[in-house]
């Protein structure tokens, strides 16, 4: 046999110096492009095997599989048997239009080292614990990461772990690029910056890039241990024509009020520069996901009973492991209160750092984007929730206060990265707690009271007003108050229920006081619809479509304000009640109640849910 010849080596060497030719560009628009835009449904918060808290829960889904799942392919889920066969399966009944895998940046390298024999650090104590007792490693490794620290096996300055993060980060990019099919399915390269403050106060933010130009390595909490440092690094890594980025905070409901700070560490108030840096990148907030709803809480600045929705009754997640630390939630853990605070900061600084559009997503740690049905088959969160054992769970697959999460909806001309990313940037977006509601919301000064009867409502909305996410233009002479038009259509799919009502929520700054109010604008809150909790059959009538033109009766042109719409379905059984019913639990008959299903009959069990959509706000500045 010949020794390797010079020419064979030559081929390898020569090519190593060349960049791969870029994929051919497409400039033509999609055949179904709609200049008046349509809603695209997706999930922008998805963890796969590369997230350490997912892999320690036996998740094996790779990014490419997560994208295939989003397009409708079936998937096998943990737990796995001795031969590596999955013991649970899932499949979407409707494909998503877009998705982004957002694994934790913090432990990407650690994950790779602990899973790759031969890499230095593979035999460290931490990695041995990771392989043997994943649950213990989950706490240990995340505790270190949440202090912006690295394990010893990462070497000087954490270099080894940073180097080891390259392979997973490249696989994440490759999966996103290969799954992107313009006009049919869009992906974004992204990651989660998993910052914390104090004892487990969540500062987590998802970072999404518009295209193929992304940083060589994701800036994690370790390198950028505060949000302002993250923004500065992102702006430095990602600027110019090729690269753009948005940052989407999530779970302020577990942030102890620290996710949206109005003061620096030293107690001084934030200045206009910091407010601008935030406003530049943080265009949206994830208002709802597996770990609860962050819109608002009844009693914190409002008496809005619909705020009693998917609540986690704590200030931060540490309370889940140490119940003695549990304290009642604070106003600043909720988006509505933070949006109001933004008005006050705008008055003081001339820039609103909290001008957030609203989306929802799942935060799945099983790699199952868009699996949002309130169903007895909800497989659980797969991360910070209840660990899965050797066999599929016989009781509830997760903590009672977790839920299947929601969807992000983007109003865009066509299903491409450029079109969807532009929608994120201008906040023409809304969130749903799962169903595919179609919600339009425009604000303007000249809308006719009969606009809902017009065939060209949408054209007029754009021509004479601004869509959700926008800011009202200056009032024309003689205009007394802005008018809003909101239209909601029920989810047209088989699992959709009729709508019950549509509301408009207003927050405003009256002098120095933050105020809020909720108006019923369409539908019927007293329609009497409910759900039979013993069979989960929904009962009573509702609406297929609701539309209203609403004029703010209390408008004061000197006061800053925001307005958003909330569309609410008739009640249905929550996932947990579906499961309890499917397992034959009847709380009045103890014989039907096994130990694993005890939660079905606990006092904390909220049995029904009114699914909903939250539009992004429209702002008014004097």
């Amino acid at each position, binding site marked *: 046999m010949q020794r390797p010849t*010079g020419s*064979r080596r*030559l081929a*390898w060497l020569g090519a190593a110096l060349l960049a791969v030719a870029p994929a051919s560009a497409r400039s033509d628009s999609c055949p179904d492009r709609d200049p008046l835009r349509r809603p695209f449904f997706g999930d922008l918060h998805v963890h796969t095997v590369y997230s350490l808290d997912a892999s320690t829960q036996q998740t094996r889904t790779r990014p490419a599989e997560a994208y295939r799942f989003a397009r409708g392919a079936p998937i096998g889920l943990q737990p796995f048997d001795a031969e590596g066969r999955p013991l649970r399966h899932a499949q979407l009944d409707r494909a998503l239009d877009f998705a982004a895998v957002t694994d934790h940046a913090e432990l990407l390298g650690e994950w790779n080292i602990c899973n790759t*024999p031969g890499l230095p650090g593979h035999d460290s104590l931490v990695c041995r614990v990771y392989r043997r007792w994943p649950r213990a490693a989950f706490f240990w490794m995340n505790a270190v990461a949440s202090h912006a620290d690295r394990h010893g096996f990462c070497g000087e300055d954490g270099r080894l772990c940073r180097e080891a993060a390259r392979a997973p980060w490249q696989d994440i990019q490759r999966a996103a690029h290969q799954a992107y099919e313009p006009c049919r399915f869009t992906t974004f390269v992204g990651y989660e910056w998993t910052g914390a403050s104090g004892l487990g106060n969540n500062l987590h933010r998802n970072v999404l890039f518009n295209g193929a130009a992304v940083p060589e390595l994701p800036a994690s909490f370790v390198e950028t241990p505060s949000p302002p440092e993250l923004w500065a690094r992102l702006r430095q890594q990602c600027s110019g024509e090729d690269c753009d980025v948005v940052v989407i905070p999530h779970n302020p409901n577990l942030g102890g009020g620290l996710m949206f700070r109005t003061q620096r560490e030293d107690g001084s108030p934030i200045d206009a520069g910091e407010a601008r840096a935030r406003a530049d990148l943080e265009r949206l907030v994830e208002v709802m996901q597996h770990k609860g709803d962050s819109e608002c809480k009844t009693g914190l600045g409002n008496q809005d009973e619909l705020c009693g929705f998917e609540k986690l009754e704590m200030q931060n997640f540490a309370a889940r492991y140490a119940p003695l630390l549990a304290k009642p939630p604070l106003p600043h853990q909720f988006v509505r209160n933070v949006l109001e605070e933004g008005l006050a900061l705008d008055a003081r600084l001339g820039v609103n750092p909290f001008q957030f559009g609203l989306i929802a997503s799942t935060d799945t740690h099983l790699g199952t984007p868009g699996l949002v049905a309130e169903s007895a088959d909800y497989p659980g969160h797969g991360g910070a929730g209840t660990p899965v054992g050797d066999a599929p769970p016989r009781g509830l697959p997760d903590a009672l206060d977790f839920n299947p999460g929601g969807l992000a909806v983007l109003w865009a001309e066509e299903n491409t990265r450029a079109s969807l990313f532009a929608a994120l940037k201008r906040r023409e977006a809304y969130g749903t707690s799962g169903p595919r509601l179609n919600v339009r919301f425009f604000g303007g000064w000249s809308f006719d009271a009969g606009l809902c009867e017009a065939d060209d409502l949408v054209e007029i909305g754009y021509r004479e007003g601004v869509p959700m996410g926008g800011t009202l233009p200056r009032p024309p002479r003689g205009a007394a108050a802005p008018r809003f038009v909101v239209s909601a259509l029920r989810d047209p*799919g088989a699992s959709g229920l009729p709508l019950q009502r549509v509301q408009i929520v207003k927050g405003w700054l009256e002098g120095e006081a933050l105020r809020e109010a909720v108006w019923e604008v369409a539908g019927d809150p007293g329609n009497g619809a409910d759900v039979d909790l013993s069979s989960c059959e929904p009962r009573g009538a509702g609406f297929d*479509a609701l539309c209203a033109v609403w004029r703010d009766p209390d408008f004061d042109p000197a006061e800053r304000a925001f307005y958003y719409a909330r569309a609410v379905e008739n009640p249905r059984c929550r996932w947990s009640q579906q499961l309890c019913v499917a397992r034959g639990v009847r709380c009045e008959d103890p014989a039907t109640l096994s130990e694993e299903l005890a939660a079905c009959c606990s006092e904390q069990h909220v049995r029904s849910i009114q699914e909903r959509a939250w539009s992004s706000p429209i702002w008014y500045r004097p």
Partner: protein
Amino acid sequence: MRDSRRPLLHFLLIGAALFAVQSALSVGVDRQPRVLRVSVARQRALEDELRRQLGRQPTAAERAASLQGWVDEQLLFREARALGWHRSDPVVQLRLLRNMRFLGAQPDEAPERLLEQAYALGLDRSDVVVQRRLVERLRLAIGAGAVAAGPADSELEALRAREAERLRRPPLVRLTQVFVSRDRHGEALAERAAALGERLVEDAVPPERAAGLGDPLPLPAQLPLSSQAALAARLGPDFARAALAAEPGRWSGPLASSYGLHWVWVQRRLPARDPELEEVRPELEALWREQREREALTSAVAALRREVEVRIEP
């Protein structure tokens, strides 16, 4: 002419330059031993690692695969060394310098001298980071070499044929719909829809004039070319199925949607079709690249395997 031809030209030029360098360098490279021994201790270590990963006793096939993986890695490492990369790679140099300093070398010693000492001590052969770096670099280079010239259209055509079923575009329709609202008409819905249909048909109302005749709905009256799935996403699965079956060029209905009843005029109906090459080129190129990289690595490793005799100590 497609872009990929230019990299091919670059590749040839750079290759020629490198060939000269390579010929000069390879004088003095050791001939590699033609036998690779796998010691008993190594076999045991590999098996222990495997057991830890699986959490059970590995099967014979799993043990063989793990051993083959180790052998292949050694072969790639030797090959990278034969290319002289253990001397030229900057990451390797940094690592060796760090190791020398760790071993207590004089801090003010010149890096060149420290490196010479490291090579004399054989640190470049025993360090696992050096090995992984060189193996990884060679793997990437083999893959990149295999795809540098870009695919020929004929190769993409073959892939397109293989993937035809998955790539097939669904049938599309472009239609105008006129809506009758269930919310508004309740019990009288069917009657109302029938009256509307009568009017549309008897007056031969052209679709572009029908917009104002129905109830308002914040969806386009004129829906763009849409697949069944796209129509279902807007108006529900029943409507989508019926609209795909409607005859073009006339009023059909009433079609039930999730919101009420509709009369539909299909302007255009495109049957399912196989996409043109240009439409799926990026996707096929990605597939081609993945496949070629994998094949190139497999055949490179196979060639290296043929050159050595692996002796597994009993």
